[in-house]
């Protein structure tokens, strides 16, 4: 039977295209235009060419913020992914306890970002916060607003508290989708718990774990609200991540040109990483479909 080729179906994509144009493409074009110009306000611009890019790429400010950002994303992935898997493995498989567990795990995900920051800001204070007070009573010197190490630890624990349950829920969904015969075969072979995890559960969770890694990496790479509320990027610049630095530049200093160049480079890095993750996920899906 001859197939009908109808290119008019492309018109159905038009509404989405219009929506994306107004929400993403036109603002992006404006940012590109700003990045080659300087402005002193009142919508008056002066062409400066590649000056902002040169200035930023040769400044320590950008590289320091990028380094902090990559370190932060690396640390939280190293903690949240194994911890999320561990939590998922420990969760009840069925019954009312499984439902209660799922609801409890979802709670941190429902809290708005700025509220999370505020909770930890109060929680960590040595004068009124539970954590800060307990640590100071134990004789441990802890002050996230003055000590860079304490600030980093607090920001990391806050992120782990907020987002590990997402990884756990995804891993749990992956675990629940493994057919029983796999476990029965492992039992017949007298496989150890580790072998069951290594050769059955982990490979079967590969797809959802890739999604978890992608989501957590992208989200941590663009983190703004929680550390901004908690530390404001300080002490000094210790927790000034890329987005905090960008907002300082764009709104604090009103340097529209450099901020536009900064955000474009930031966007390009995110686009590159997203493409790599997307390609890996597609390749995994195709490999799984072949098996």
């Amino acid at each position, binding site marked *: 039977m001859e197939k009908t080729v109808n290119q008019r179906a492309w018109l159905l994509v038009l509404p989405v295209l219009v929506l994306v144009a107004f929400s993403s493409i036109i603002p992006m074009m404006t940012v590109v235009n700003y990045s080659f110009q300087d402005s002193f306000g009142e919508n008056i611009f002066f062409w400066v060419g590649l000056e902002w890019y040169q200035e930023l790429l040769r400044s320590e400010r950008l590289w320091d913020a990028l380094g902090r950002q990559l370190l932060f994303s690396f640390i939280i992935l190293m903690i949240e992914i194994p911890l999320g898997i561990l939590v998922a493995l420990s969760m009840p498989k069925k019954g009312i306890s499984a439902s209660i567990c799922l609801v409890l795990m979802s709670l941190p995900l429902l809290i708005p970002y700025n509220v999370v920051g505020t909770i930890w800001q109060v929680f960590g204070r040595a004068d009124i916060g539970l954590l800060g007070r307990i640590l100071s009573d134990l004789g441990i010197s802890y002050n996230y607003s003055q000590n860079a190490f304490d600030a980093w630890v607090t920001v990391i624990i806050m992120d782990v508290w907020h987002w590990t349950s997402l990884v756990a829920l995804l891993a749990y969904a992956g675990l629940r989708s493994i057919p029983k015969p796999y476990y029965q075969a492992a039992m017949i072979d007298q496989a150890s718990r580790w072998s069951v995890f290594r050769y059955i559960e982990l490979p079967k969770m590969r797809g959802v774990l890739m999604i978890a890694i992608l989501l957590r990496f992208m989200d941590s790479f663009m983190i703004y609200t929680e550390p901004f509320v908690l530390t404001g990027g300080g002490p000094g610049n210790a927790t000034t991540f890329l987005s905090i630095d960008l907002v300082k530049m764009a709104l604090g200093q009103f340097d529209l040109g450099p901020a536009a160049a900064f955000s474009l480079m930031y966007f*390009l890095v995110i686009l590159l990483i997203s493409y790599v993750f997307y390609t890996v996920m597609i390749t995994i899906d195709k490999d799984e479909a072949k098996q």
Partner: protein
Amino acid sequence: MEWMAWTLPTAIFFLSIGALLIGMGLLHMKYPSTPRVGVLGIETMRGDRLFISLLSSAFINLAWIGLLDAPQYGALIICGLFAIFVFRWV
């Protein structure tokens, strides 16, 4: 449109990208691309190769700006050569 702070060079840049996308779209309708596995070991279509070329070009240009004081057309020549490589072997 004044608020978008348009300039001639950026307008030419976006028109070129737009023309490239429309051209590739029309080319795909006339001669549909078939997937192939190249040096990266991933399956790519013509559109993927264009995307890889454009994204790489952005990074080549940034590296050129950050590392060298040479005129920018040098980076554009490298981008062109790299795009040929991507379309031929990736």
